[in-house]
């Protein structure tokens, strides 16, 4: 409940300040527009649209999800949070906020992709949904812990993509593979290994994040 209260505080704060929502919306629109302009009348393969989808998602996550902790640090309210809640509550609240943001953002990006790119055709929707769900959880967990790390650094803007790339790379590569499989119409059972990798990634990142957050959070 405390984590949910923190999420609610962050959500109301976000609706008033629009720290992350505006950054994410602008980034998504600009990136998709640039892709469309650069493609022009060319017909691109369905695999390429699948790849582009995760590229847009990856960079959008870079632009908006760090706000969860950076905005607290910039406003000087980190101390206030430290004084009112335990590190576990704080991490859970921030993770919940990023999860909601990632899902909203990625649903919007996927809908835009399916509307704008004719070749973006998913033949096995249930496989894509499983990958999408597990992928979003992984992105949210990784982004939240990286945001906590970089919020303490002086060069936040540079550090976020630098740290995120190696951490998110295995996740994005697996998601690309699963998106390809879902475009080919493969069954869930034949993609079991990739799904297990995604699931394991989420569990490992979640456990490691909860264990590490205490050390990151305290000076």
């Amino acid at each position, binding site marked *: 409940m405390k984590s949910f209260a923190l999420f609610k505080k962050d959500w109301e704060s976000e609706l008033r300040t629009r720290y992350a929502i505006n950054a994410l919306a602008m980034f998504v629109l600009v990136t998709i527009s640039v892709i469309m302009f650069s493609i022009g009348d060319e017909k691109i393969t369905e695999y390429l649209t699948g790849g582009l989808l995760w590229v847009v998602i990856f960079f959008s996550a870079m632009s908006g999800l760090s706000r969860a902790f950076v905005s607290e640090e910039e406003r000087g309210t980190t101390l206030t949070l430290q004084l*009112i809640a335990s590190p576990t509550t704080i991490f859970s609240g921030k993770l919940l906020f990023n999860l909601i943001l990632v899902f909203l953002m990625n649903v919007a990006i996927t809908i835009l992709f399916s509307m704008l790119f004719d070749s973006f055709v998913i033949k096995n929707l249930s496989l894509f949904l499983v990958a999408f769900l597990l992928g979003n959880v992984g992105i949210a967990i990784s982004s939240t812990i990286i945001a906590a790390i970089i919020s303490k650094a002086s060069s936040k803007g540079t550090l976020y993509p630098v740290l995120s790339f190696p951490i998110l790379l295995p996740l994005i590569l697996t998601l690309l593979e699963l998106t390809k499989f879902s475009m080919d119409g493969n069954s869930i059972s034949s993609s079991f290994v990739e799904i297990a990798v995604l699931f394991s990634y989420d569990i490992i990142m979640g456990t490691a994040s909860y264990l590490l957050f205490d050390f990151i959070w305290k*000076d």
Partner: protein
Amino acid sequence: MTNYTVELNKLVKYFGRRLIFDGIDYSFQSSHVYGISGPNGSGKSTLVKIISCLISPTKGKIKHSFEGKVIEEEELHNFLGFVSPYLFLYDEFTAEENLQHISKVRGIKFNKERSDFLLNEFNLYERRSDLLRGFSSGMKQRLKFAFALLHEPQLLILDEPTSNLDYSGKEKVYEFIKSEGKTKLVLIASNEEADLALCERVLELQNFKNQQPR
């Protein structure tokens, strides 16, 4: 009467190679008001942050106990009220919304009666529905006292409590320190003579800078 104690055991703090203080052994007990004093840079704020478990000491230990039971670091926020000039509340919320959100994140039910009482005492009741971004620094400082006292903490740590406050604000703060100090533990880190005059004992930090650099 409650029994809250804070024991500092051989506390040492370095920032890099610079020694801030060395070998602080001290015990604070409830129903008293203690002062922490020293020249600028002597580590007053550092010490109160260490006592609040916001930062770690380089060496030594801090033990918080309430009614004979040791308080774990993760639970300390339930017992602690903290006011300082480097503490900031949320500018995008009103004074009352700040207190509501903070209560809920603490995991306690928002006590409207207590909130109204504190806002009234600190002369903010009329402005309770205004966003904090429109508040002056003195008004924000007053609200920090409402923030610190809302959950009726056993330990009240006040770092430069009267900074930015006008005469009436200071008088109100002193009134609260006196009343809270009767049953609870109050620590004041300050150089202001008027602040330290309220303290029964004062810990002088310049006495804890003996060691050679590392």
